[in-house]
């Protein structure tokens, strides 16, 4: 099977993720969109791995998943903590880091 | 040996941090003392004909061509000695009167001494720039943390001056100069390498000077850093505020040594590496120097704060030193080297005396002092000697320095010598005014006249003894600096010394 379709799907998924990150205000949704982008990357990795007959891509994809899981744990933890402290869950209002 | 000389103060400063507060000062004193002893050894072993001595040359950042090169020649020799002498004095002073958070203070002292010595010893352009900027860090903390608010000049409707803004102003102003210098240094290296291997070794840069056009603009980058540091008119804007808030023992070091690094930089870096630009802009710098002399003197004459009198007098004195260097003659530059040491030796005890005066009078406003000599003859005598040296009375080494400087300028550009000599008369006036206002006339009720303590007196007396000793034999410095000075001037095309003695 031609690799092109996988890559197109991957690109579409990535674009959806980017759009979500850029447009949404809720940290929860942003986190989900980030996951989407990561998985778009995974898809591309797997597609290349298969078409080239090399196993390294799959290993790489596994590592990405692990990291994504860690990230979700930390990210969700922060969101829950923020929610408990009644900090607004809106990234536009969380800008204490501005210069 | 020179490595020990360089790093001992910092090491002792770190060591002192581990000791209890009471003894920390005396532990920290070990570093400057070691350096002083080594500096004396270096002076004793010095061979005036042999050029650079005690050299160290290690590779440091090979990819950038930066080397760790140190060395002593006739120009840096006595500045190193001056630095070590003044640091011993100031550290001893701090050990006698420990400030708050004494250990941090002492650490900063050690770091500062290492940085200054590094700037005097560095023979690699980048290393020089690094040490030059490193000097600022300890003084930022010394001035910012231990500085005290000054009431400001009432007659000028000036509000109180707080330490933080003043020190920030000083740092930003000098850093702008330093950054320009860093840019200039890198440009020099790259242009000199011309696609080949990068090197910042001063000796190499000297042997292979840049093209005239590049020299012209890089000259000003370096000049900006040095003129701000000295400070020269009209770049002294940071000085009045910084001088008024600075803790005095640290200010004694700053005024005594750091201002000399600027003048030293001209002699060490600018003259040999940018000879064409130096000759080309000679008159401009001479003009700056002469105006500094007159302006500094006139301002010193009208100030009421003893610190500012000292500050503006430094502007004038550094003007003389610059004048000597840019006479581009061996006699003028030789005198300038002597004068750098002299001025350091004079201004440091002067500022320490101001500490004592301020403690007696509760203010540094000289119009509110008076009559302090009454019960303090020893203090008065030492102050008088310092004053006379400050105004360069003939018979002091300062006079010989000024005489050599004026001679250099006189033979080169006679007008500047005549105008500069007006500065000598003004110096007599403002120095004596300071002395009289503090020591003589009626004593206001609120002021207590009492003799200086023997430990503090010992520090000032030691410095005064140095002044007297140098007055008896200024040839000590002139002889040893002469050959190195000629070497630095060789490239400016003015190497022919006055053959007057032979005629």
């Amino acid at each position: 099977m031609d690799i092109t379709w996988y890559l197109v799907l991957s690109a579409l998924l990535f674009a959806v993720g980017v759009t979500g990150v850029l447009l949404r205000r809720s940290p929860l949704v942003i986190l989900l969109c980030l996951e989407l982008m990561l998985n778009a990357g995974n898809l591309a990795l797997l597609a290349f791995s298969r078409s080239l007959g090399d196993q390294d891509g799959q290993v790489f994809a596994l590592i990405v998943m692990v990291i994504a899981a860690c990230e979700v744990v930390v990210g969700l933890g922060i969101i829950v903590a923020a929610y408990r402290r009644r900090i607004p869950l809106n990234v536009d209002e969380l800008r204490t880091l501005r210069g | 040996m020179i490595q020990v000389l360089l790093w001992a103060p910092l090491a002792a400063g770190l060591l002192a941090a581990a000791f209890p507060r009471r003894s920390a000062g005396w532990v920290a004193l070990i570093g400057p003392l070691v350096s002083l002893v080594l500096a004396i050894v270096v002076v004793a072993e010095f061979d005036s004909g042999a050029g650079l001595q005690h050299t160290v040359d290690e590779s440091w950042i090979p990819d950038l061509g930066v080397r760790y090169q140190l060395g002593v020649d006739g120009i840096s020799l006595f500045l190193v000695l001056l630095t070590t002498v003044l640091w011993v004095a100031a550290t001893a002073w701090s050990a006698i009167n420990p400030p708050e958070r004494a250990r941090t203070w002492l650490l900063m002292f050690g770091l500062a001494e290492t940085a200054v010595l590094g700037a005097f010893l560095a023979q690699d352009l980048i290393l020089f720039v690094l040490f030059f900027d490193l000097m600022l860090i300890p003084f930022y903390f010394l001035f910012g943390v231990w500085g005290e608010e000054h009431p400001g000049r009432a007659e000028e409707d000036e509000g109180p001056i707080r330490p933080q803004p003043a020190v920030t102003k000083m740092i930003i102003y000098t850093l702008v100069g330093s950054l320009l210098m860093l840019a200039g240094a890198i440009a020099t290296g790259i242009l000199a390498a011309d696609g080949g291997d990068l090197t910042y070794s001063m000796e190499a840069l000297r042997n292979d000077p840049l093209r005239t056009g590049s020299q012209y603009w890089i000259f000003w980058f370096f000049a900006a850093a040095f003129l701000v540091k000295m400070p020269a008119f009209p770049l002294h804007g940071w000085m009045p505020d910084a001088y008024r808030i600075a803790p005095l023992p640290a200010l004694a070091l700053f005024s005594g040594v750091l201002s000399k690094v600027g003048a030293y930089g001209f002699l060490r870096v600018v003259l040999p590496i940018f000879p064409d630009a130096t000759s080309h802009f000679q008159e401009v710098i001479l003009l700056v120097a002469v105006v500094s002399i007159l302006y500094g003197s006139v301002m010193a004459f009208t100030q009421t704060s003893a610190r500012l009198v000292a500050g503006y007098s430094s502007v004038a004195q550094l003007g003389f030193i610059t004048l000597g260097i840019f006479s581009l003659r061996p006699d003028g530059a030789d005198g300038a080297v002597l004068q750098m040491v002299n001025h350091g030796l004079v201004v440091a005890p002067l500022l320490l005396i101001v500490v004592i005066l301020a403690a007696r009078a509760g203010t540094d406003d000289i119009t509110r002092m008076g009559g302090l000599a009454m019960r303090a003859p020893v203090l008065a005598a030492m102050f008088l000697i310092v004053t006379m040296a400050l105004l360069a009375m003939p018979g002091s080494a300062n006079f010989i320095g000024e005489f050599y400087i004026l001679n250099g300028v006189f033979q080169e550009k006679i007008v500047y010598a005549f105008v500069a000599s007006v500065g000598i008369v003004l110096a007599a006036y403002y120095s004596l005014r300071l002395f009289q206002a503090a020591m003589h006339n009626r004593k206001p009720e609120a002021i207590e006249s009492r003799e200086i303590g023997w430990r503090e007196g010992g520090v000032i007396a030691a410095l005064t003894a140095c002044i007297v000793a140098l007055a008896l034999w200024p040839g000590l410095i002139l002889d040893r600096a002469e050959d190195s000075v000629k070497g630095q001037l060789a490239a400016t095309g003015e190497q022919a010394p006055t053959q007057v003695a032979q005629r």
Partner: protein
Amino acid sequence: MSATAYGWLVLAFPLAGALINGIGFRWLPGRSPGWIGTAAIGLSFLSALGMLVQVLDVGTDERTFTSSLYDYASAAGIDIQMNILVDPLSTFMCLIVTGVSMLIHLYSVSYMTSDRGFARFFTYLNFFVFSMLLLVLAGNLVLLIVGWAFVGFASYALISYWYRRGTATGAGMKAFVINVVGDVGMVLAALFVIRELGTLDLIGIFEEAPNEFTTNEGVAIAICCLLMVGAFAKSAQVPLHTWLPDAMEGPTPVSALIHAATMVTAGVYLIARFWPVFELAPTAADIVAVVGLVTLLIAATIALVVTDLKRIIAYSTISQIGYMIVGVGIGAYSAGLFHLLTHAFFKALLFMAAGSVIGAMANRQDIDLMSGFRRAMPFTSALLIIGALSLAAFPLTAGFFSKDEILVFAADRGGWYWVFVIGGYLGALLTAFYSFRIGFRVVAGEPCTEARELERGHIHHAEPENPATGEREDTDIGFPGPTHQIAEREWPMKVAMSILGFGALFAGFLQIPGVTDVIETFLEGTFEESKYHDTVPSESAAWTGLAIGGVIAIVGVAIAYYMYVMRPGVSAGLIRRFRRLHDFLERKWYFDEGIDLLFVRPTLAVGRWANATFERYVVQGLVAGATQLTKGANAGVRGAQSGYLRSYALLLVSGFAGLALYFLLQT
């Protein structure tokens, strides 16, 4: 021992005295600092005698010795040695300086007894003498300038000796600053000398000068004029004379020292020492002489009206120095130095007598308050009259011979130099008058309160006040001490004054026209190559001059006798008649005001202006420029840190997109 070894000893003793007194002030009891100081100068005087013997030991042509201790500062083509030059001129000066100073020290031991700064006083006094000797013996120009400046410093220290007095510290400052003006002139002269002659050694200069300069060459005139600035500042010649009358704020022995032996004669010495250069620049020499003449007349007119006893004597000094300056300016070197010698005697004597009178007056100095001390203080009165006679150039006193020698020499040069003769004799008339204005008003007339009190055996003691400001004196330290000393009661004062009185009467016999010429012969070793050396006025001219001088002196004294003894009201009437003139003279020709207006005020104004405007706008503007630059850059970078997560993300994404696009386009 060689002459130069004695020369070093001459220098060493006063320095040692100053050091011992200066360091040991806490431990030296009673009058001992005074005796140490006096002994130091005494030993120095003996060494000077030794020097004289050694100099006389060799032939006239070989009487020049030099000796160098070490290289003081020699580098880069400038050679400055620590060396001295002993020749007849320096020997002559050393003898005067040490001899007269020794007597002044002796006098001070008594006079300053009750002052609390006794040791400090003798430290300064010894240092003063050391400086003057250094100036006189210096073998090169830089060392001469060093001595020159030390003299200025010592005078500063002594003038403002009673430092609790505002007027004293002000006067000290004035003296010092004017002297520094002179120093700067000397330094610039030295720089010219280096450039033109390539040496700073005095002998070298005198040997080179005739080879390098043609007569009246511009550079030679420049050098002479700059040296002149130095000489005039130190010798208090117009317009740099204003410090000298103010210097009366110092204790009376200091005035004696400054006027008689050490300081003001330095200018005369300098010009005499540099005669080879001045003879190459006759124009400069003429300027010197003219300034001397102007000074002697101006000072004499001021001395007619001031009423402060010490200031009258001070103006008389300025006037007498004017004679010496005229002398060395027209080439009458030995005559000028002869007058220096006699002047040293009678001027020191006059100040000592005045000190004794001031002691009796409890530190009041206004002659309007004094009268009739002849019975109360017979010794002081007699010596005061002797001093006044000599100052007035009364026939057969010392001043009589020396002053006329200068004027006769001027007459002998002829031409327009007659101006000096006429001016000189006019000055002599004024001198005779004002010297007896002092003499008669103090000695003659009805005894004043203080004199009566003293006749009853009690020295008047008033609460001291500053005569200049009327302010109560602060007696906590030093001034003026609880007791007052008069010569009648203190043998050291008596001895010192007697010896000087002897000198003031008989020193003139050293050089009587046609009879003796001790000084001229002795100084031959220094001046024999001068082109005026053979210009010796004829004996008949000399005696005619003496006769005229004698008559003028007697007339002057007679006028004073008429005005102050026979008709005491006349002077008040004259003051009323010529109110304007009197005011003008009393304000000292407005020199102080002029200098203030021309130099001091503009400098202060510039300083204030700079502080208020320039410093604030231009200098701080530059600082602000640097900070603004930093701030501007800062603002640019800060804008990017919005804190919006989305903008960061967008930046990231567009960055990556850009990179990707770049690589795509590359392939």
